[in-house]
Structures are given as structure tokens and as C-alpha cells.
């Protein structure tokens, strides 16, 4: 049986993590092809419902990547995102899916290496946790579906 390839959605703030993804590409860094990046105007625009719906669609893991504390382009968007992630983690624990499948990371625009590290770290974590019970194609096939390699 092929090794489980998690499907992970990364909601990335355009002012930091999304720019860091570009940088990782320019630096020719290799990182996990399992992540799907969604550009956000600010990590603080993430909502509880969007996170739960993403899991309902069958992804194995989700993370939000925002600026370092004090660096948010909109002052406190990242602080709000962190609180919402904590609230949704609690819901995920309560309903049995497990809060570990969701995380928040600080990824500044200048740190392409951190972007790659976080992508790899989260992929490894979700690989350990195994496929989400909501993932209907459990032996997820990231490469074939266009997971990108920088």
C-alpha cells in the first residue's frame, strides 16, 4: 500500500506567508507537495465556519499562516486568527476529529525557509495522525492532483 499522502490546506496571508511562499520558490527550496495554498488578504479574515467546511470537504489538515506578532499589516488580524484557531481546535476536539489537525504558524515574508519548514512539519504531523475519517479518497494522491513543488 502506498504511503498516505495527506491533503493539507494552508490559508496564507498575502503580506507574509504567501510572499514567503514566493520567496521559497525563488530560493528553489523543496517543500512538501501536500499543501494547497489559499491566499488571504489577512490571516484575520479566517472564520470558524470556513475552517470546519474545509474539514468537511475531506482535507486531512489545515493551517493558517500569518505574520509575527506585532507585524500584522492590519495591526491585529493575526491575533484574532490565533484566537479563532484555538476556538475551532476546541470544537474539533469536542466532535472527535481532533484539534491537532488544525494549526496556526507565524511565517514572515522574509522567511522562505520557514515557509518550507512549516509545510514539511505539518505534513509530517498529519501523516502521523493518518487520514481524516472525512477524507473519502484516504490514500490521497497529492502529486497527481497538482500539488506543487517549488
Amino acid at each position, binding site marked *: 500500500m502506498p504511503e498516505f499522502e495527506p491533503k493539507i490546506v494552508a490559508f496564507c496571508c498575502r503580506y507574509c506567508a504567501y510572499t514567503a511562499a514566493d520567496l521559497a520558490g525563488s530560493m528553489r527550496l523543496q517543500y512538501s507537495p501536500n499543501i494547497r495554498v489559499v491566499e488571504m488578504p489577512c490571516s484575520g479574515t479566517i472564520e470558524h*465556519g470556513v475552517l*470546519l467546511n474545509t474539514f468537511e470537504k475531506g482535507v486531512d489538515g489545515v493551517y493558517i499562516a500569518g505574520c509575527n506578532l506585532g507585524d500584522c499589516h492590519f495591526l491585529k488580524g493575526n491575533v484574532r486568527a490565533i484566537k479563532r484557531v484555538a476556538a475551532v481546535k476546541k*470544537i474539533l476536539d*469536542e*466532535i472527535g476529529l481532533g484539534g491537532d489537525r488544525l494549526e496556526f504558524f507565524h511565517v514572515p515574508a522574509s522567511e522562505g525557509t520557514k515557509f518550507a519548514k512549516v509545510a514539511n512539519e505539518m505534513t509530517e504531523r498529519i501523516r502521523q495522525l493518518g487520514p481524516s475519517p*472525512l477524507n473519502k479518497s484516504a490514500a490521497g494522491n497529492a502529486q497527481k492532483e497538482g500539488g506543487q513543488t517549488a
Partner: protein
Amino acid sequence: MIVAQQKPIKDIAQMINDCKKVLFVGCAGCVTVCLAGGEKETAVLASAMRIKRILENNPLEAITYTCTRQCDPEYIASLDNQVKDVDAIVSLACGVGVQYLAERFKDKWVVPALDTKFIGGSTVHGVWEEKCGLCGECILHRTGGICPIIRCSKSILNGPCGGSQYGKCEVNKDIDCAWQLIYDRMKALGKLDKLMEIQPPKDWSKSRDGGPRKAIREDVMIDE
């Protein structure tokens, strides 16, 4: 506004455990403002329930609808078509909304997703405080706009009591003594003399005493 809070997910899940299709009904009134039962909270609860039930191998079809208000018959009439094939209705309104749904949809299992707490308002984003005890005969004009019925732990009419210490209530040092607030405000307004008038015992017949209350405006009633 009426302030409510969502019940624990496991308690709501328990109420609809044997249902296959459930309608989650939000309310765009007070519970939207106190972030307990608006459109967003309704979608989140329905989503959480669907996921929980898939994990339990007991899939749930959860649909959602948010009424302008659940405490007016005309606004819940729009649910008539949606409730037909559901096994239960989960209301994310205050206790009033739950009762309106239960009364209209007599053959449906209607359950509350919220605990209705009090009437009050927000102090900062995400924090709500009780401000009025619905006593039925407001006396705020005598108390500087600060309600002693609900904000004084003992509902004293001629306060403060002997437990008032450094502006705090003896019940809990995190609670401001309402009578200290009343005194300070009346003093600032130059109206301390008004506080010297002894308040007679309150007429509680205007309050909960004597069963549920009714308010009637004959002039706006529509003749059938």
C-alpha cells in the same frame, strides 16, 4: 438585547441523536448580536454536528435557515416548507424562539441549542453584562440610570448595604457595588437629595408575580 450562550456540543448532539435529518434555525435578532445564534453560528453548529455524526457512523443531514426573528409568527412561516421532512428542529434563538417554533410545528421535535442567560449589553467586543431584571416598573429615574434591581446583588432599593467596600460588592470583589455607582452618579449630577427619599417596598405584582405577563396595545391591533 437578550443574551444567550450555546450549550455544549455534546448536549445538543444528545438531543438529536436518533434523528437523520435536522433543520438548524438561527435568528437574526438579539442572538446574532451576542454571537450565539446568528447565521454564522448556525452554519458552524450544523457543520460540527455533521462531522461528529460521520465520525460516529451515524450520518446526519443538517440544513440551516436563519429567520429575521423567531419571536414573530410571520417570520417563522417561511420555515413551513423546510420542516416537512426533518426529524427535528434545533433552534439557535432565545427560549422565546424555541417556543414559537414548537408551537407552530406541533408534530416536530424542537430543541434548544442555546441557554438564554439575561438581558443586557456588550461592554467590550465579546463580553456581555446583565443590565435589567425586567421588573415591570422601571425606577432608573430615581437611581441615576443604574439599575439596583439587577446590578445590586441583593436588589436593594435603599442602598448600599453594609457589605459595600471600596466600591465593590461583598458578593464578589469583581462586581461593582451598584449603590456606590448610583451614589457617585447622583453626586456628580448634584441630585444627592433625591437619594434621601426612602423608597417604599417595590410593587412586585408588576413583575413575575402572578404568572406570565402580557403587553397589549389595543390601538395597533388588527381586527379580523
